[in-house]
């Protein structure tokens, strides 16, 4: 009996030793622990919070103690009939938001997909330019597109006054109806435009990696171009397409700034606006948790459905063929018009906004409504009159702005390093332990932060920073890095996995034979081979972090901390000219960095996800 036990322990020891001798296993376990702490734990907070009295105000109004269990949050939000509360706060906005998100998905996927198809499969000119410029809207903070939308379409039919004539009216005299400027449809369009480049990046990656022979085989068998698209290309890219839809869907439905900004006629109150409202009010925080859980549940539901539909049998395996020799679809005389149409679309969503930001930042509105050129919002050292928002009027001479820029850059670089490296390592573990349940679980959990709305994510980490033992995080820069790092892991882990899966195991095994230590194999063999893909995995979190506001707004001590919080403060306090200048600055900084990285390493975000 005792002998047996001893033997077992011995064996177990050996098993553990051999298990941990493989780096992939260590990585899996380490990330299992890290993700449990950074993702699962916050999720539990959400879940428990939805069943507890969370705040002093909740406790007061329920007549209980903080921490008491309750199902009131669920009951009230889901079923309360007092002035149709459940219907007005949840079900109706949910329905409309789902509609908006689906519409945004549709726009993003169709626009991104069409551009991706033309870039990868057609012989049109100007591809490089279109591809490079098309990603601009994704770099901009999402609400800046909404600002652009309003600036472009607003007209004096809605509100009179010279200042209320938008760009379109100024140029063409056309006044679009109000429902085209505010409400569900414009929100969906703005979000769709913002995420179209994201869809383009994802779908372009898939199309680039998809074996062109699969389409050629159908061509040879006499299938029409349309039939090939619907019977061959789309079904094969469907799983990836659906996951793209899902990503855009969950981003859109939880986007707060766009629907809030484009609701000036009060016709469309998005779920996210209610969510933010519930979260930021101590009296309804628990209901905020309930709503966040519901939003996640929807996304996870879609994800599960997706996995169920595209079971293993149909899974798409790439066999390396001669797909390098993609033959491009010939458009003959049509190639120039098509390129021009694409250029116009890309120009409208990518270049015109930049132009308007630049214009708005150099035009001063005088008391009589006329506008004069000025560089004051860039260079003036004058202290703004009225409310004090900043040290100087001109953003380029503002110490506050430069400090915020520095912190934003620092934060984004660190977040990119954390998220990118984690993604790479998770990708490695998943590729090396393909089929292992633990590895799949780790990679699934690494994807979860994407499905948690940024605002709730921020709120959960805020409450963490008030928890005993974590208070040192409160208001610290480390907290921002942690939150950013975790929130943006999904991008990087997707990139990492797909890049790692493309590398055959033999490449690493050849190095193992030569007794090269693990870190050297990673650094000297694996990383250099897929350098462009991996670095793209760092770029995407970097960019997302540079333009992120909702995630950080609850966690920053001061509005001067980050460039986006500063931008938010400028917009809020009506210093729109300087806000436009900052907006432009963010985009330029990101573009310059992206360009530099691209020149140095060949990586680029349009090459990004999917390798």
């Amino acid at each position: 009996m005792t002998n047996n036990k001893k033997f077992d322990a011995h064996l177990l020891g050996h098993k553990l030793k051999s298990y941990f001798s493989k780096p992939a296993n260590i990585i899996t376990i380490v990330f299992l622990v890290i993700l449990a702490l950074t993702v699962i734990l916050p999720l539990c907070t959400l879940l428990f919070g939805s069943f507890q009295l969370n705040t002093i105000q909740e406790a007061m109004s329920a007549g209980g103690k903080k921490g008491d269990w309750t199902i009131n949050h669920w009951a009230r939000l889901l079923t309360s009939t007092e002035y149709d509360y459940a219907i007005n706060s949840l079900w109706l906005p949910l329905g409309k938001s789902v509609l908006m998100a689906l519409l945004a998905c549709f726009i993003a996927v169709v626009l991104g997909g069409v551009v991706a198809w033309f870039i990868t499969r057609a012989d049109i000119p100007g591809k490089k330019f279109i591809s490079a410029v098309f990603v601009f809207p994704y770099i901009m903070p999402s609400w800046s597109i909404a600002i652009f939308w309003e600036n472009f379409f607003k007209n004096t039919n809605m509100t009179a006054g010279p200042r209320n004539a938008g760009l379109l009216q100024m140029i063409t005299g056309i006044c679009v109806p109000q429902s085209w400027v505010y409400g569900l449809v414009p929100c969906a369009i703005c979000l769709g435009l913002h995420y179209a480049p994201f869809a383009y990046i994802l779908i372009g990656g898939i199309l680039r990696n998809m074996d062109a022979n699969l389409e050629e085989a159908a061509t040879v068998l006499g299938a029409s171009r349309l039939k090939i698209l619907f019977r061959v290309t789309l079904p094969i890219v469907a799983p990836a397409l659906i996951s793209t839809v899902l990503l855009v869907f969950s981003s859109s439905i939880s986007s707060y700034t766009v629907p809030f900004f484009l609701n000036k006629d009060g016709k469309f109150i998005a779920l996210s606006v209610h969510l933010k409202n519930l979260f930021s009010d101590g009296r309804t925080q628990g209901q905020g948790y309930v709503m966040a859980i519901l939003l996640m549940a929807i996304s996870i539901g879609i994800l599960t459905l997706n996995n169920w539909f595209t079971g293993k049998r149909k899974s798409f395996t790439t066999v390396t063929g001669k797909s390098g020799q993609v033959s491009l679809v010939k458009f003959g005389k049509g190639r120039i018009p098509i390129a021009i149409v694409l250029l116009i679309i890309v120009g409208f969503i990518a270049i015109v906004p930049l132009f308007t930001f630049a214009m708005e930042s150099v035009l001063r509105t005088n008391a009589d409504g006329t506008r004069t050129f000025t560089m004051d919002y860039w260079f003036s050292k004058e202290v703004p009159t009225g409310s004090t928002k900043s040290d100087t009027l001109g953003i380029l001479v503002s110490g506050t702005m430069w400090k915020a820029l520095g912190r934003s850059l620092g934060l984004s670089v660190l977040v990119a390093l954390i998220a990118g490296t984690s993604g790479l390592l998770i990708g490695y573990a998943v590729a090396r332990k393909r089929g292992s349940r633990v590895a799949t679980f780790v990679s699934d959990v690494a994807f979860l932060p994407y499905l948690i709305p940024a605002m709730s994510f921020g709120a959960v980490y805020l409450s963490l920073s008030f928890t005993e033992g974590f208070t040192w995080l409160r208001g610290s820069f480390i907290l921002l890095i942690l939150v950013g790092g975790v929130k943006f892991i999904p991008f990087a882990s997707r990139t990492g996995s797909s890049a790692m899966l493309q590398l055959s195991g033999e490449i690493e095994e050849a190095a193992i034979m030569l007794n090269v230590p693990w870190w050297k194999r990673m650094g000297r063999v694996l990383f250099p081979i897929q350098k462009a893909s991996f670095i793209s995995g760092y770029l995407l979190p970097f960019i997302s972090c540079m333009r992120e506001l909702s995630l950080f707004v609850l966690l920053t001590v001061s509005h001067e901390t980050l460039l986006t919080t500063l931008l938010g403060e400028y917009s809020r306090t009506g210093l729109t000219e300087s806000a436009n200048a900052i907006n432009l600055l963010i985009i330029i900084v990101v573009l310059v960095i992206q360009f530099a990285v691209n020149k140095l390493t060949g990586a680029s975000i349009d090459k990004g996800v999917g390798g």
Partner: protein
Amino acid sequence: MPKIILENVTKKFDKFVAVDNLSMTIEDRDFVILLGPSGCGKTTTLRMIAGLETPTEGRITIGEQVVFDSEKGINVPPGKRDIGFLFQNYALWPHMTVYQNIAFGLENLKWKKDRIRERVNEMLALLKIEQFEKRYPSELSGGQQQRVAIARTLAPSPKVLFMDEPLSNLDAKLRLEMRTELKRLHANTDSTFVYVTHDQLEAMTLATKVCLLDTGVLQQYDPPLVVYNKPNNLFVADFVGNPTMNFIKGTADIQGKTAKISMLGTTFTFRADGEITPVQPAVEENTESDGGVDVVVGIRPEFIRVEQGKLEGKVYTTLPSGMETTVKLELGEEIVTSVVFGSVDYPTNSDVSFDIVGNGVVLFDATSRNKIAMGSLTME
């Protein structure tokens, strides 16, 4: 029935010339193999005929129909060329069953359902894959996938069948098996086959005609045995045959149908079958001894007979493979390869004598690298 004619076909990728001014005719029911090292333009040629790639210049005719003409701007899409294409990686659609894969091309021809059923069954039987009908490609082995791909390609009964290294993803044994089946298939289907490979053995065993390409330029287009025995130039001679031909450098003094060749430290007399193509003396100041020219003498290993002869050498190494033995002989600075039937084992470094026999010796101009004559060699 179709005859495929390529006239002055050129394909450029930016500045890189993949295929340079290629003209050739593929006769009906030929089994033409496009052969050459990787990057020689063979796949590009195939894809151009199939319509998957657009030539930069030239004209391609399949049967009576001009499918491509750069001058007239004709470019018939692949689906309308009545061809089949077998891809190296099979390109089976992962989301369709075996049945759906095979039926797809027939649907495009707007066949009735029961007719499709019938034809697919026929194909399944022909390739012995009836039991996999309802499976997805990812559930099949490589060989089975290959058969499905062939069935899918053959189902619409294309007049011409193009194959791009179809056997290269299979293991050696399966490859041999499929080779046999392809050759029978060619005999049974009455179609013209155009096949790309870099494996010269595959070309020798399968083709009715071999088209050898190098860096986009046609080197030789002949039946395999002609290519083997009468190579146009040093490249062809070197590429075809295993072990490769012996190339011995020498200088020749050509007079009419004979030539005195000094090589291997001695002098040989070369008697040509016909006229020897005249050779310009390389460069004038280089010609020291009575107008001799630099030549390369090509001798297939089977024409070097070991054990009785006037040439003396040492055994460098012996490579027995059962049915035959390759012997490498050292003679001065040259290493000469010989093939001996049966298993013989010569001790390394032992002295042997050998001879050059037969009339299959090829004489190449060392400068132009072209064949200038065929004939026999005797030692003086």
